[in-house]
């Protein structure tokens, strides 16, 4: 909208005077009646706007109102105070978390580190697996055999987190001499093959902090690797046969075909998926951690969400918990936005 006087007044050469610009008058009119027009359009099309209301309200109430609760990180948790005095504790909670002194702060930093590490190891070990599996799927020419493999490897993804963690818990359970129970079957395998000592197996793998990350990653691969391969596999089967034939005529062996035909074709998919993963580095599935960890493994297992859950929901320290989540979420959001910007620059595909 032009608002400068020069635009509004036009110099008329024939009369040598300034006169009002007719177009600008129309523009002004439009501006003056903007909200009126909006109202008219909405009224005329009220059915469409009625449709969007439920969605709007659901997101407003249960996605945006919680964000208001985030202000709790500045609040003193004391109902006897006036509302104005309750706001603001200022940055005391953040200072407690950042200070590096006291058990709270130590625990928070451990949790923050674990959050990052669990995702990072997931990126290192969990990310390449689906790609490898997709490459192997492609080698199986028989449709029936491939379908069987696919159905089996997608299966764990359909199990709930509770079922999965219950299975893991039972398979690596501790032995219980009083009740006369042996350790879990996977632990027994591992002891047999000498990966872990018998004492560790008897005490239960889930009680050993040094094994938590491995259990988390391996169960993660078990759960998602097959299912996640779908997207890479569809990228691979989209490659036309002529590309392979051309490579073969040029004398390319299998490795060379992989290197020069398959990889370049699925590279964009890989990049996109990689960037998505990096964007959600601070977004660890807390449900799984919550169901697998116990006080013995807090050192390596605790993530920010479970830290918050322990202090904010189980305990009475909502201020600290909220501040911790606030920090985590802000850093997480910055990561997502960076990842998305990079994705947009690197390729034409944008994630959101």
């Amino acid at each position, binding site marked *: 909208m032009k608002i400068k006087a020069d635009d509004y007044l036009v110099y008329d050469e024939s009369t040598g005077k300034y006169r009002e610009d007719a177009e600008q008058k129309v523009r002004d009119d439009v501006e003056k009646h903007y909200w009126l027009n909006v109202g008219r359009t909405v009224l005329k099309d009220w059915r469409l706007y009625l449709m969007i209301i439920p969605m709007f309200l659901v997101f407003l109430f249960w996605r945006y109102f919680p964000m208001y609760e985030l202000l709790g990180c500045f609040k003193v948790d004391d109902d006897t105070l006036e509302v104005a005095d309750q706001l603001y504790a200022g940055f005391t909670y953040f200072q407690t978390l950042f200070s590096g002194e006291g058990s709270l702060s130590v625990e928070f930093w451990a949790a923050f580190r674990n959050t990052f590490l669990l995702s990072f190891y997931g990126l290192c070990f969990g990310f390449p697996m689906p790609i490898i599996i997709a490459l192997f799927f492609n080698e199986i020419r028989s449709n029936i055999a491939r379908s069987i493999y696919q159905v089996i490897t997608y299966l764990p993804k359909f*199990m709930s987190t509770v*079922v999965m963690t219950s299975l893991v818990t*039972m398979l690596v359970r501790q032995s219980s001499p*009083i009740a006369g129970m042996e350790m879990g079957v996977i632990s027994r395998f591992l002891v047999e093959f000498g990966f872990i000592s018998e004492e560790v197996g008897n005490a239960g793998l889930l009680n050993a902090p040094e094994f938590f990350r491995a259990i988390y990653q391996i169960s993660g691969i078990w759960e998602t690797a*097959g299912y996640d391969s*779908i997207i890479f596999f569809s990228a691979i089967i989209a490659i036309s046969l002529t590309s392979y034939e051309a490579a073969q005529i040029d004398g390319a062996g299998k490795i060379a075909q992989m290197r020069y035909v398959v990889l370049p074709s699925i590279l964009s998919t890989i990049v*996109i998926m990689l960037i998505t993963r990096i964007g959600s580095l601070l977004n660890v599935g807390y*449900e799984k951690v919550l169901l697998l960890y116990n006080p013995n493994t807090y050192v390596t297992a605790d993530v920010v969400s479970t830290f918050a859950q322990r202090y904010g929901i189980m305990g009475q320290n909502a201020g600290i918990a909220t501040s911790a989540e606030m920090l985590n979420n802000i850093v997480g959001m910055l990561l997502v936005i960076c990842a998305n910007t990079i994705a947009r620059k690197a390729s034409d595909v944008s994630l959101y």
Partner: protein
Amino acid sequence: MKRKLEVSELIFKIISYVFLTIFAICCLYPFLYAISAAISGREAVEYGQIVLLPKDIQFEAFAEMFNNNKFWNSYTNTLFLTFYGTLWAMGVAILGGYALSKKRLLFRKGFNFFLVFTMWFSAGIVPQYLNYLDTQEIFYKLGITDDKWLVVIAMGMAAMNIILLRNAFEGVPSEIEEAAVVDGATELQVLTRVYIPMSKSTIATVALFFAISRWNGYFWARQMITNLSEHPLQVFIRLKLEEMQDPDIMTGWDEAYAADSVIFALIVCSIIPVLIIYPFIQKYFAKGVNMGGVKE
């Protein structure tokens, strides 16, 4: 043209088969073990004699599960949550997605951002918990004392799913809509007679996403449903697992089957419905994943 396989290709093929077979066995083994352990005799389970095949077969652990009213109760609750939860979420998502797919919608960009922002930034579980507590209070005041409705209405909406629907609706040619409007169709008729039939497979996929997440939902159901008899299956499994880990129960155990068998029987029971419908829904999921490349 039939071509002789080169050596490198042959080796690669063999590696593929071997690797995939091992991986598939690893994927399947825990489930097979669970079934075996659920139907094996007490000693075999407790002394760790079961590797793959069951021993001293008994079905009492299953019988105990089937005679357990709490188990059936939790099953009913899960069905309730899944059915009404999916219905509610789909209703909201279809209407919202349809409105968002219309170019003539005012503030379309704003609404889209409103939606997408929740994928970037979530308040976190403690603020959400406080919010749900407030909601619960309001629901109680309105006379809705069954916490299941709170779970159904307040939870489980996903911006991603609405965007999938929006994209599908955007793909419907506008000429068809115009023709319907000329024939005198109202907005709702356009949606139900044109858009929904034309994007059936996306709708099925999104409904499945919602249904699975409802069926598997655990954390919030456990936090927010105060009445024990209203808990869904997942919470029931977890509580049973925690109960069975208690040393007192294990030492005082005097049934003909092992305490572990109960857990395994429960796990098997809970995954049977999923296994039955799994072959039918699997292809929709593959489709859903490929739709994930979202555009703005």
